[in-house]
């Protein structure tokens, strides 16, 4: 089959590789009909995540048609499914608590050592996201093997086209959980840093959950326009001092909840960020937590900090004093996708949530390397790239 493979920094290629096969009873094989490039794929593209091997197939946002199901799978050939990026066994302590992104079993035994050393306990398995998360082949391909297919994939009813439901795989539940972690109360102001896909879905979700005001922060005009169209007030951090603006907007109280939807590769010409970039370049540090610092400092006393943005390693100069002295609560996680999918699918079906506005580019899978390039280089215009394995030529 054809698949998008990683070969190094800014080097991804379309290659012909072996077709996936059923290995375990609960496996299924999916023929991909739509797959997307995630903002977090750019962290792989930029080599910010260690333990990728040359030839690894990327991609963790995908959906398709079941072509083969093991004896332990509940799926049937022909069914259309969206697959969560988190691989979860459904049987361990964590899965039973619906903390699917903390599943204790899906990261293979021999792969789990690395993250156990890094984080104290091993990470959960995920598709196409380095060997820290299990080395599972991703879905930017014609076919993919889905382990524990009786737990993860959600069957999509006929009549809901791919583009309406594809983002159930990651970014829609991720934005939703980010908003849920804000524990929104009536009258609350929520500030969201980063108007990429997760930030935009977090904005949409927070408004559905009853946020009184929503303030979106970015520097790409087009992305700020999208945020505005969802109902947010916007701040361009190139034009305005964000913390002062938030202070004024909220009558000197500060936002009740803040969301870092940026993560480890924040932009911006500030001293701390420049130092972080230098340290990352010379491998003295990995993460550039500029936005994490900002959200902690901007949040009101006793407020909530929600971090859906991806971090992987160590960060310097986190304002720990502000976190403690202001009595902030901090919630973060990889998304417990399986927990949120059914409710969100229902809302999509009822027309309460629309995700299609996000898609700016549709490309054949064969053009995936170019998709990465434009997503990386033209972040203003390119908000989401969807790849189609069965399109043979550019549309």
């Amino acid at each position, binding site marked *: 089959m054809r698949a998008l493979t990683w070969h190094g920094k800014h080097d991804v290629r379309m290659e012909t590789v*072996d077709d*996936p*096969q*059923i*290995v*375990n*009873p*609960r496996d299924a094989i999916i023929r991909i009909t739509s797959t997307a490039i995630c903002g977090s794929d750019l962290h792989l593209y930029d080599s910010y995540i260690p333990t990728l091997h040359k030839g690894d197939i990327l991609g963790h946002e995908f959906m398709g048609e079941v072509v083969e199901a093991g004896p*332990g799978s509940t799926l049937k050939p022909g069914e259309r499914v969206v697959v969560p990026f988190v691989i979860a*066994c*459904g*049987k*361990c*302590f964590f899965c*039973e608590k619906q903390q699917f992104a903390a599943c*204790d*079993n*899906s*990261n*293979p*035994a*021999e*792969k*789990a*050592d690395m993250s*156990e050393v890094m984080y104290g306990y091993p990470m959960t*398995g995920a598709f196409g996201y380095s060997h820290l998360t*299990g*080395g*599972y*082949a991703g879905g930017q391909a014609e076919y993919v093997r889905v*382990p*524990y297919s009786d737990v993860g994939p959600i069957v999509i009813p006929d009549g809901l086209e791919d583009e309406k439901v594809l983002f159930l795989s990651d970014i829609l539940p991720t934005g939703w959980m980010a908003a849920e972690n804000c524990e929104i109360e009536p009258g609350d102001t929520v500030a969201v840093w980063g108007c990429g896909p997760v930030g935009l879905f977090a904005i949409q979700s927070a408004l559905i959950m009853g946020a009184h005001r929503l303030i979106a922060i970015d520097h790409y005009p087009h992305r700020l326009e999208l945020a505005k169209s969802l109902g947010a007030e916007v701040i361009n951090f190139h034009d305005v001092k964000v913390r002062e603006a938030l202070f004024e907007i909220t009558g000197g109280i500060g936002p009740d909840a803040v969301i870092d939807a940026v993560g480890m590769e924040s932009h911006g010409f500030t001293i701390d960020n420049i130092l972080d970039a230098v340290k990352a370049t010379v491998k003295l540090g990995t993460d550039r937590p500029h936005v994490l610092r900002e959200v902690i400092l901007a949040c009101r006393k006793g407020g909530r900090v929600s971090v859906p943005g991806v971090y992987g390693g160590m960060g310097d100069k986190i304002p720990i004093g502000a976190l403690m002295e202001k009595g902030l609560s901090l919630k973060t996680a990889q998304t417990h996708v399986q927990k949120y999918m059914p409710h969100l699918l229902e809302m999509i079906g009822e027309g309460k949530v629309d995700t299609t506005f996000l898609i700016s580019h549709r490309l054949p899978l064969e053009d995936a390397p170019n998709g990465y390039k434009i997503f990386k280089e033209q972040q203003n215009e390119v908000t989401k790239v969807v790849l189609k394995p069965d399109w043979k030529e550019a549309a």
Partner: protein
Amino acid sequence: MSDPPINRAEESDAPDTAAVHQRDVAKEAAEERGWHEAALVGRTITVNRPRQEVYAFWRDFRNLGRFLENIESVTPGDDRRSHWVIKAPGGRTVEWDSVLTEDMPGEALAWESAEGADIKNTGRIEFRDGPPGRGTEVTATIVYGPPAGDLGKLIAKLFQREPKVQARRDLRRFKQLLETGEISTSEAPAAAPRGGAQAKG
């Protein structure tokens, strides 16, 4: 306070290796057995299944080859003896008999290699209830003695290359098998672990 964790740790060999005490437990284990040296591995894992079931799975020694990577097979013989076939480098195998030295149903199991084994080894597995509704805590303590013969030395190297790494991976596979019925893998079928695809039994 009955049986607080630190007391439990003092009573068990395994958590000692996790620096509960700064004792040289490997040396003590060797002295206890009259060996001139020993390597000791201890590790605890929680399995989200009832204690009797977890015990019974391990007690059926035929299952060991499904999650212990270095073991080709274990065949129960009469009464307390079982025959172990161990993978050796270069596609070879080494075999020895083990004797069950302790069997407290639902609580503990221990075995010891019989006279003449290329690597003397003993193992003890303890099963305890976790907090209510949270399954079974399994503590494995394995002691390897000095090898006999050249092949024995080679095997010992294999086992002791990273005995702690081996133990934690083996226990993770044990947990996966009991909780999910499979062994998680991202490999293609040819390179995948054996335990996953087999029927239980």
